[in-house]
């Protein structure tokens, strides 16, 4: 006769396995404690310390931080020059997000619906490859592309379209001396660098939409545009919103791209960087970092109200 139950194990490892099997709660506790400590203490703790800093102020004569609660930094934050920075950054982040969604959706759709096997691998490679190389290298590469004697300028010249580029650069706000010192340049580089963060979540959401939903919509009389509007977009929206959280918040906080490519006017990240660095005004820098957090909070609240997560 074969045994019905194996005898209780003697080894330590087997005994631990048995004990954990009997207490699933303990297993989850052990698995979650290290990340919870990391998130709770290291991340949230430092964030909290930062927020605390924003309620301190700086002594204008000594340059020392006065550890007394005051809203002085926030008063300073809302001076016209700083509000300009905030608006500029939010507008840029919004434009980059919208453009990333427009450019990313067809790529994600193709990958989710049509790409199979080798094409799918190629898609992942194509989307991820830019993430492998250093971010600085990519930005300087873009500087070479966008500079006055750069690749793009050469291309326009070869095609005898220099006049078009000149005409574009002479536009107010969008233009400048060359693309690499214009807001158009900043926008292009932001779009390029953050695009994968839009494509991947969108693709994951589209992947979960069965073909039969699209067929059913078409079967019921919906033209392709209606199917997109009433079925595909609502079901892909959680993915697009997830992607937009990345593109929007990454643009809000970035301080390197606008420093290398674009006009000399500040974006939020640059303001934080300069206040906590050269100016040594940690409280104002901290107050500045609160801005993207608040904006993101509003953004998520709004997205939820618009039903972006209904299909989750």
């Amino acid at each position: 006769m074969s045994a019905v139950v194996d005898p209780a194990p003697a080894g330590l490892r087997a005994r631990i396995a048995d004990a954990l099997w009997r207490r699933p709660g303990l297993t989850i506790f052990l698995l979650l404690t290290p990340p919870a400590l990391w998130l709770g203490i290291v991340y949230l703790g430092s964030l909290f310390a930062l927020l605390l800093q924003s309620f301190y102020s700086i002594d204008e004569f000594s340059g020392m931080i006065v550890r007394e609660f005051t809203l002085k930094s926030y008063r300073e934050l809302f001076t016209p020059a700083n509000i300009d920075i905030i608006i500029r950054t939010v507008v840029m982040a919004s434009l980059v997000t919208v453009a990333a969604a427009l450019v990313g959706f067809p790529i994600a759709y193709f990958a989710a619906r049509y790409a199979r096997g080798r094409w799918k691998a190629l898609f992942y490679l194509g989307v991820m490859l830019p993430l492998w190389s250093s971010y600085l290298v990519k930005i300087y590469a873009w500087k070479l592309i966008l500079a006055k004697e750069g690749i793009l300028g050469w291309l326009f010249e070869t095609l005898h379209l220099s006049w078009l580029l000149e005409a574009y650069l002479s536009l107010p706000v969008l233009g400048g001396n060359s693309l690499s010192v214009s807001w158009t340049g900043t926008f292009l580089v932001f779009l390029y660098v953050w695009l994968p963060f839009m494509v991947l979540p969108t693709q994951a959401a589209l992947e979960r939409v069965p073909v039969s939903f699209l067929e059913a919509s078409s079967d019921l009389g919906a033209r392709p545009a209606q199917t997109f509007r009433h079925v595909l977009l609502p079901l892909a929206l959680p993915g697009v919103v997830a992607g937009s959280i990345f593109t929007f918040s990454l643009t809000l906080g970035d301080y390197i791209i606008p420093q290398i490519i674009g006009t000399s006017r500040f974006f939020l990240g640059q303001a934080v960087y300069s206040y906590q660095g050269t100016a040594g005004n940690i409280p104002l820098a901290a107050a500045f970092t609160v801005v993207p957090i608040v904006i993101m909070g509003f953004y998520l609240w709004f997205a939820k109200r618009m039903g972006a997560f209904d299909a989750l």
Partner: protein
Amino acid sequence: MTPAVRFAGVSRHFGPVRAVDNVNMEIAEGEFFAMLGPSGSGKTTCLRLIGGFDQPTAGKIEIFGVPTAGVPPYRRHVNTVFQDYALFPHLNVRDNVAYGLMVAGRPKPERYRAAEEALEMVALPGYGLRKPSELSGGQRQRVALARALVNRPRVLLLDEPLGALDLKLREAMQEELKALQRRLGITFVFVTHDQTEALSMADRVAVFNEGRIVQVGTPQDIYYRPRVPFVARFVGSSNVLPPEVTERVAGRHVHAAVRPEALRLGAEGLAATVLSTAFHGAATRVALEAEGGLRLVALLPKGVEVPQEGACVHVTWAREDLHLMTEAGA
């Protein structure tokens, strides 16, 4: 009368695979038409060709006499109940049912009234505000039906709509679907791999095998007068006698079919050994092996003595129960 659907030499090849191979058929208006066959036999591909989700490689499909080449699904007055129901998860039941009317630009009150009527028709009144995820499988199936019917299609396509339901629900839905079809008079084209379902519901059945239609006929035709051994085996698992055996018992060198319930065990006839017996309630199923390794199945009604496993018996049948298949083929 113009047929509701007409296939003329229709083929659909996927590379070297002939999913549908030179199919010709006519489905009459108001008919309950079943396409029956094992998986991969081409029946679902035919349904998708009618719906417009796929285009034939060769041949012509007409719907009420209108050629459909190049006509997209959204311009065909044909609606489909999908195998997985394909209910939109982000819309409630009412908006799902009213979807066709919504994209057609009908005003909201009309849409909602029609949706509620359609839900009543499938015995789900008042379910409009629930989400599809809150419904059981049977309820989802009804919503899918209501959503297809609300557009008053000329032809309704049903792709194994009862496959995911449990036995009892399936039987109830079979009766309801049939009653609904009678009441509405819409042409139903029903795809299934379940022969009892096809036989009990359809006016006519097309049996598919390897991309071709092997027989079209009434359920009685298909059941009692199979034209090829495949139909005899697939529809109701008839016993198929090879030509050599038929020649000995009936004098003709052709395949022959005899239904399990027609077999009787007696003192003379084909000698066979009992392999196994299984109690099926109303009858007992006896598996037999005759000489030459020929497998037979007999269904013995209640009250008939059941032989022991391993016993040697003789199998006989009434002459009229032996159906000779004059056509060649597997």
